[in-house]
């Protein structure tokens, strides 16, 4: 039997690791990349207890962008104090601007996070600056979970043979 198609829901980046979440039939499939190894686990939707959607500031990115921007801004300022030619400090100023713009972007566009919790696993799906997509994913998983749990609870009411 051919495996059912899976739909990409989103990913989450951690330090040295990427998790990609998919919806396949009545289960979430999570692919975790650790260098060249791919670990694939499956979370059945009939076990899911809670799905949440919230927004959060990416503090790590903000700190990294700020540090990058301020470092180059300091170097540009020091050079500008000594040499009046624009060509001496403009490169550092451009790098500083990139860093500070990145920090501003992170401050304005928060991440939307969908968290799926079951007794055995927790799946986190992050959409950076795409709240609409995150809401779609939240609704999709919630609706599919409700359907799956309704389907799996109805036969159990009837007495089982044997």
């Amino acid at each position, binding site marked *: 039997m051919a495996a059912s198609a899976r739909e990409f829901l989103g990913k989450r980046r951690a330090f040295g690791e990427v998790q990609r979440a998919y919806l396949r039939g009545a289960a979430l499939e999570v692919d975790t990349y650790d260098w060249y190894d791919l670990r694939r*686990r499956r979370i059945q939707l009939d076990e899911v207890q809670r799905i949440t*959607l919230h927004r959060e500031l990416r503090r790590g990115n903000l700190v990294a962008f700020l540090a990058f921007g301020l470092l180059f801004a300091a170097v540009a300022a020091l050079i500008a104090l000594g040499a009046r030619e624009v060509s001496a400090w403009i490169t550092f100023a451009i790098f500083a601007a990139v860093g500070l713009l990145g920090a501003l972007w992170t401050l304005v566009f928060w991440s939307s996070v969908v968290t799926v919790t079951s007794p055995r*696993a927790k799946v986190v799906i992050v959409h950076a600056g795409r709240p609409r997509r995150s809401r779609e994913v*939240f609704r999709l998983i919630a609706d599919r979970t409700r359907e799956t749990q309704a389907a799996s609870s109805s036969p159990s009411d009837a007495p089982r043979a044997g």
Partner: protein
Amino acid sequence: MTAPREESLRAPCPRCGEDVDAPLRRASLRCSWGHAFEVALFSPPSVVGRSRPAALVASAQTPCARHARNAAVAACERCGTFMCALCRVELEGTPVCLPCFERAQADQGLGESGTVLRDWNRLALNLGLFSIAFFPFAPIGGPLAVVLGLRGRRQDRRTGEPLHPVLGMVGMVLGVIAFAVGVLFFMSLFRETGRGGIRA
């Protein structure tokens, strides 16, 4: 007349963990720290449905250690505690209770159930790129990229689900090109050496 209210529902805030009362199974909530979030709560039948009150089963049946009204369905393989379907968790194929599951998770991390694959196609691409960039290594790296690409194709056929097949193809092509460039480089080097060495 008000609509019948569901049983008391609580959801932890995903940012601070504070428990918040949920008026409905699907609601927009805010914790006391002001963190807004949406929640959809479920009662999984695979857990709840399996649990039956002890009174409804044979009276001689052992009750769960944590839920006295539920009949025990298994004993924990680690500590021996009787547990109902609510408490039962599978850890690498063996039934354990929730405290033992959490202890195992905290102690050594869980060997999670699932499939482990190696991304041979991406490995082939990276080795192909490396061989092109550092072509003196290409006579070894090029063929190796081809071998890894073929291994990726074999894995894709076996699993029935290709994992970056294009990357593997590109890696193999780069490997062949790098091998040719590397061989030409060494041939010209040997030819120059034969003519009396390379002059600066």
